[in-house]
């Protein structure tokens, strides 16, 4: 069951990833990115990351990507016109090269990782309780620092995007 779900959503993720790179219109690539995030959320659930899956959906898909969609809508950016026409041959060559490269990487990773046991849904549950407890004990300082970071980002964004009065 887990493998089936993994295959489905990994396929979706890869498809959306390729779509993001290939699509000319930014809104299309934005939505394909949301597709990637959604499928990753499911994979997180499989890997036992409940809280992270929810956070991924809420924060990433729900907030950051909305920002992107907003900016794309506001700027009404048209489709990208490919300036240099890459010959068909180069495209295929590129694809083959990419495939080979990915094969190499997967071989290396396969070799590198110890023959660990497979992933079964439910064997490890990183519940919100554990994440919360650890977040506010061992990782309290990074938590506070990131909150300051966000504050800075907010102020920065406002100052940058404000219309000159």
């Amino acid at each position, binding site marked *: 069951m*887990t493998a089936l779900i993994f295959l489905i959503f990994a396929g979706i993720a890869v498809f959306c*990833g390729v779509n993001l790179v290939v699509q000319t219109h930014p809104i299309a690539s934005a939505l394909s990115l949301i597709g990637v995030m959604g499928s990753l959320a499911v994979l997180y659930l499989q*890997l036992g*990351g409940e809280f992270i899956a929810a956070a991924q959906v809420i924060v990433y898909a729900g907030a950051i990507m909305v920002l992107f969609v907003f900016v794309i809508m506001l*700027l009404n*950016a048209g489709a990208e016109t490919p300036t240099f026409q890459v010959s068909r041959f180069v495209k295929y060559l590129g694809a083959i090269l990419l495939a080979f490269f990915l094969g190499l990487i997967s071989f290396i990773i396969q070799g590198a990782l110890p023959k660990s046991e497979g992933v079964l849904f439910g064997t490890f549950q990183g519940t919100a309780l554990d994440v919360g407890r650890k*977040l506010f004990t061992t990782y309290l300082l990074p938590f506070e620092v990131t909150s300051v970071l966000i504050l800075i*980002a907010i102020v920065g964004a406002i100052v940058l995007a404000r219309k000159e009065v």
Partner: protein
Amino acid sequence: MVPNAPVPLSWYLILSAILFALGVAGFIFRRNIITVFMSIELMLNAVNLSFVTFSYQFKQVDGHIYSFFVMVVAAAEAAVGLAIILTVFKNRATLMIDEVNSMKY
């Protein structure tokens, strides 16, 4: 591969590598600033996946916390990045990276 058999951990990492490679490709080959920005977000997502995978391997929640912080940072980065893109658009009326090259030597 009986659908119910456990999925070897390395597959998740391979997926993460593939997504990361796609992100890098987008980052290099696309000309629209927003698309470049989005491929960076894709790379960050790939990293998050490997974080969660490793947290599963070590049965600890630290991986989740790291990916949580990655998300937070990505949010901050997105906010400021998009603000910059807006200002660039306001001043240069273009989103094509190549036209924004006044920082020449």
